[in-house]
């Protein structure tokens, strides 16, 4: 600290030049740090692609479009990822059906109706929900939800896609709530004032003016939430029973793409067809979540709402 005063006078003498060179240096450094994440995403695509690519030659990408996932069969191995896609689809659809209406309504309430005190209580709890590790949510599902669903629907077993979907809804809701809430808050006050001034009730204003005006932000929130749902692994691995059935019935056991990778990656031998097939599943997952993120970002950008 004692040497600092000595350096100050020199910078006072030529503030502009020093400022320029220093700022340039800092800027370069920060750009380098910031772009590592781009580099990492690029490298992930590159290396996953590299591991998956040989599958296209032998046994060929056509092998993926079968309805049997039996990668360790001792008779004939089969790498049909259609049941895995249907599995991911079932849990994602259920999660969306629950989390979207729930999340949007909660966001509307927090942004438009809640008193400051309610906000103070609600918001930290929603953020807390986002921070619960998925394995803990999975554990909760296994102990509480699986027996509950089994009894409720008179099923033979509670290990179903439905339980997976409900748990994923719990994980997607915080994302949807916080981003939707921001979107609703950013609707100009003048819209609401105009609506109330021409005699619309508070409820009418919320549903017919505020929410439609914030729709783009809400859509982006939904897509980011769904992105998290598709990529989630641990909770679904624990509660869905992991049978690779080709089904859209939520009361059946399902095997998701993520659970398949997590369960099988440890065992396979490096460079085998099974190994390549799992990387193909990985690419499909990556492209799906990447696509959802890009669409969400475009929607946000179109309406000039951050990011």
């Amino acid at each position, binding site marked *: 600290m004692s040497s600092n005063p000595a350096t100050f006078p020199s910078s006072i003498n030529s*503030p502009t030049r020093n400022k320029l060179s220093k*700022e340039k*240096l*800092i800027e370069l450094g920060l750009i380098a740090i910031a772009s590592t994440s781009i580099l990492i995403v690029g490298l992930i695509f590159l290396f996953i692609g590299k591991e998956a690519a040989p599958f296209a030659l032998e046994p060929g990408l056509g092998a993926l479009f079968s309805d049997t996932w039996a990668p*360790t069969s001792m008779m004939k191995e089969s790498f049909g990822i259609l049941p895995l896609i249907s599995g991911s689809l079932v849990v994602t659809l259920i999660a969306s059906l629950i989390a979207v209406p729930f999340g949007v309504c909660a966001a509307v309430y927090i942004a438009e109706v809640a008193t400051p005190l309610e906000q103070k209580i609600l918001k930290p709890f929603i953020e807390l929900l986002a921070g619960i590790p998925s394995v803990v949510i999975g554990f909760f599902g*296994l102990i509480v939800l699986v027996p509950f669903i*089994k009894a409720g629907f008179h099923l033979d077993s509670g290990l179903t896609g439905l339980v997976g979907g409900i748990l994923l809804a719990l994980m997607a809701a915080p994302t949807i709530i916080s981003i939707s809430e921001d979107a609703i808050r950013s609707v100009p006050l003048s819209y609401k004032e105009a609506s109330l001034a021409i005699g619309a009730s508070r409820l009418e204003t919320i549903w017919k003016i505020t929410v439609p005006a914030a729709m783009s932000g809400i859509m982006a929130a939904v897509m980011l939430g769904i992105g998290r749902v598709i990529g989630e692994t641990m909770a679904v*691995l624990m509660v869905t029973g992991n*049978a690779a*059935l080709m089904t859209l019935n939520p009361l059946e056991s399902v095997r998701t793409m993520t659970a398949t990778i997590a369960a099988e990656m440890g065992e396979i031998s490096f460079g085998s067809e099974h190994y390549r097939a799992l990387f193909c599943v990985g690419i499909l997952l990556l492209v799906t979540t990447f696509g959802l993120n890009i669409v969400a970002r475009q929607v946000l950008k179109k309406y000039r709402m951050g990011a």
Partner: protein
Amino acid sequence: MHRPWRLETLSTLTLLIAVISLFFTAGCARKDAAHTPAAKAGVNMVTIKGSDTMVHLVSSWAEDFMKTTPDIQVSVTGGGSGTGISALMNGTTDIASSSRDLSDKEKTQAAQKGLTLKEIPVGLDGLSVIANPSNPVKALSLAQLKDIFTGKITTWKAVGGPDMPILVYSRESSSGTYAFFQEHVLQKQNYTKSARLMPASSGIVEAVAADEGGLGYVGLDYAEKAQGRIHILGVKPDAESTAVMPTVETVQNKSYPIARELYLIVPGKPSEAAQKFVTYAISKEGQNIVQQSGYIPVQHQ
């Protein structure tokens, strides 16, 4: 006017320097790691990875072994027999524990990498077929088990039980138990697609305990510990013969039809510490622990 700007610049610079020096120290730390005493002590570290079935057994061994040999640290992880064997080939573990023998595929892979792997039988296990306690079915034949697990039989009625669907529980495909069952009971045919694959043996026990129609398979150790919450089915080698329950005697005299050997797998030239552990495992003390853990000791040659 100027002061805030300068302070801001300074703090940014400090941050930048901090980040850069972080990178440097991180780089140095990695280089240094090879020379630290911790790495030298690594000579006396033995890691054992593999079979979930054997995790209890190997941990008990490790505990007892470290008592008498305090200069060797043993760490034990599960993950499945296949996981352990690939880890052994990739050089990330010293010993693999496996509830099945090496597959031909694994042998060729090891040969490609210039490795010879030694399988050392260290115990026997009777694979127990378990059902819900409310289920009146007391025994199944091997042929019935095969038909159930491949999906040809789907209701308990077809095997003399109540009219309810059979819920098939299996381990994940990374499990040695999965592969053993597929080879010896399913005769290499595929599991039924509606088999629910559980990430752990305890998961199968929980599911079978909860679901009236549940049917699964686990190691004898797991099954015996869960007695009361599940019941162990007898297995008939063929339709006419009497059912055999998995016990120490029936597994050792080979009358129980789904028994298997448990192995420790080591590279052709194991480290001194790994060799010591294997020698201990097949010694009298080691085999006592096999028995205490609910498995069956190997007969000494």
